[in-house]
């Protein structure tokens, strides 16, 4: 059912593009709202092939999210697409007051999340969106790991009645899941078994975590990899189980170490099953624009850093 790190790479954007076009064709209530980034997020496919379902809201994210709220009250299912940075920081008051609190059926897709945003740097990177979105009551927060999972979480969001935030990345990532993969809200996915340490990862860091785990295996360290596509609701049971079975946890996310997956996992461990833990993420720093590999190294989130975190946590056991 699952294939681990194939050499085949696909972008989340291409999967998104195909899926939203299909949803907009299949469901008369699905509408796309664009903050004039359709050629980046690749929802331009809807503008081109199903134009009556495409609503251009212009470069005005706050208004876009409030309009989405109004549309949802009339029975439509608006999908708003822009960059994660603008959703989570520019329009968050609108999202809180008019979408999360009234629990309206609005889907929010944040493209270009994390650190690797195509040489755009500090204003377009999004290292805070998980932290921000997961504090909103009623909000579902999802971060798929590959193109297959993008399609699956979008299909889930389409069926789900309520606000959903989906965190996506810009570039191509190894395909992890096969087509028969079933996404389940609030459920972790064990991608690799192991006995010494569990890496709990989300989004783009899942493929880097698998890479790290395979490297460590050759050094004789047995590492489990648990992918968390659903950051909220969070699979607390899986976290506790991982703590019990391996006795040490590393978290990995392309996000600040403050408030993201690492924090969510730590909150669960501290309350339920304290074990040694190390978080991999951007460590309370402002980032910059630069090539992907250089960024991953400088901001200490590459697979080498995930592997180093595993070794570090083993010493705490």
């Amino acid at each position, binding site marked *: 059912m699952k294939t681990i790190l194939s050499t085949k790479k696909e972008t989340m954007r291409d999967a998104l593009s195909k899926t939203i076009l299909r949803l907009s064709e299949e469901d008369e209530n699905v*509408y796309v709202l664009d903050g004039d980034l359709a050629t980046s997020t690749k929802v331009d496919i809807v503008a081109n092939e199903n134009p009556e379902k495409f*609503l251009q*809201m*212009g470069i*005005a994210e*706050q*208004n876009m*999210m*409030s*309009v*989405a*709220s*109004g*549309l*949802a*009250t*009339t*029975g*439509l299912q*608006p999908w708003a697409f822009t960059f994660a940075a603008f959703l989570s920081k520019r329009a968050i*008051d*609108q999202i809180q*007051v*008019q979408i999360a*609190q*009234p*629990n309206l059926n609005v889907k929010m897709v944040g493209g270009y999340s994390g650190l690797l945003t195509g040489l755009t740097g500090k204003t377009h990177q999004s290292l805070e969106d998980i932290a921000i979105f997961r504090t909103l009551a009623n909000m579902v927060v999802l971060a798929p790991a590959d193109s297959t999972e993008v399609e699956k979480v979008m299909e889930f969001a389409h069926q789900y009645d309520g606000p959903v935030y989906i965190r996506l990345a810009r570039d191509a990532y190894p395909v992890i899941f096969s087509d028969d993969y079933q996404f389940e809200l609030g459920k972790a996915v064990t991608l690799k078994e192991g006995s010494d340490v569990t890496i709990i990862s989300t989004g783009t860091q899942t493929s880097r975590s698998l890479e790290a785990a395979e490297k460590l295996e050759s050094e004789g360290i047995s590492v489990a990899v648990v992918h968390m596509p659903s950051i909220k609701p969070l699979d607390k049971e899986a976290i506790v189980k991982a703590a019990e079975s391996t006795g040490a946890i590393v978290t990995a996310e392309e996000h600040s170490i403050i408030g993201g997956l690492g924090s969510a996992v730590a909150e669960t461990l501290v309350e339920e099953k304290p074990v040694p833990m190390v978080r991999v993420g951007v460590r309370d720093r402002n980032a910059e624009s630069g090539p992907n590999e250089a960024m991953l190294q400088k901001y200490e989130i590459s697979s080498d850093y995930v592997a180093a975190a595993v070794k570090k946590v083993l010493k705490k056991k």
Partner: protein
Amino acid sequence: MSELLLEERKDLLTKKSIEARKLVVQTVHHAGAGHIGGPMSAIDVLTNLYFNEMNISTEDPNGEDRDRFVLSKGHSAIGLYPVLALRGYFPIEELKTFDAINSRLQAHPDMTILPGLDMSTGSLGQGISAAVGMALGAKLQNKNFRTYCMIGDGESQEGQVWEAADVASKYNLDNLVVILDNNKIQQFGWDAGNQTREIPAFNPKARWEAFGWYVIEIDGHHHEAITNAFSEARNVTGKPTMIIANTVKGKGVSFMENTHNWHSRVPTDEELRQAIQELETEV
């Protein structure tokens, strides 16, 4: 274009407005908190909407084809609640729960708990965009309901208002009517040396026209003018309508009128007595 209101209708609206104003002052006095100036300036338009203009049913507050109203200036909730109660959405007695714990009458409107509210508001500049979404939703689904929204003049300092104005214009939302409660006084204002603390040159008519809206300017305390403006808006095609309702902050109580001091002050027992007396002599 304009039709004369039947005298009877006008009398009813005037009476309802006075009742609503009394309830505003009584509720704020009872709760020991709340806004007064803005709700009092908004009352006549709100009363006209709920007792005259809008196609609504208290039996079916969520009916798909009902007209919508969004109070974008959400801090005037205590102006809207008495009107909703008088219209029959909930018992008038419930106004006494305003601002209390577990109340459906939140300081700022919460659509999830109170029937008759079409949007949660309170953070300024957002309600008008939601109203744009509702009007757009009606167009996309070929529905005939109309969407009404009230904004404040102070609220118009929020940039989002103008983002909404742009999009409403782009989508030719002639099923959308926004009313500007132009009472010209805000909480603290811009010029401490100026008695009335007026905002800088605002000129809403020119601004809204520049954004491609059909603009009507009226006395916002005159039911015939309000009714005529709503009728005129129904005949507008291809563009949204802005009704600039020139109003008096604190309208109806002499010592509350035209002063920022009553933006959110609570009346003393004596002030309450005077206010009710003044409002009753208006009948």
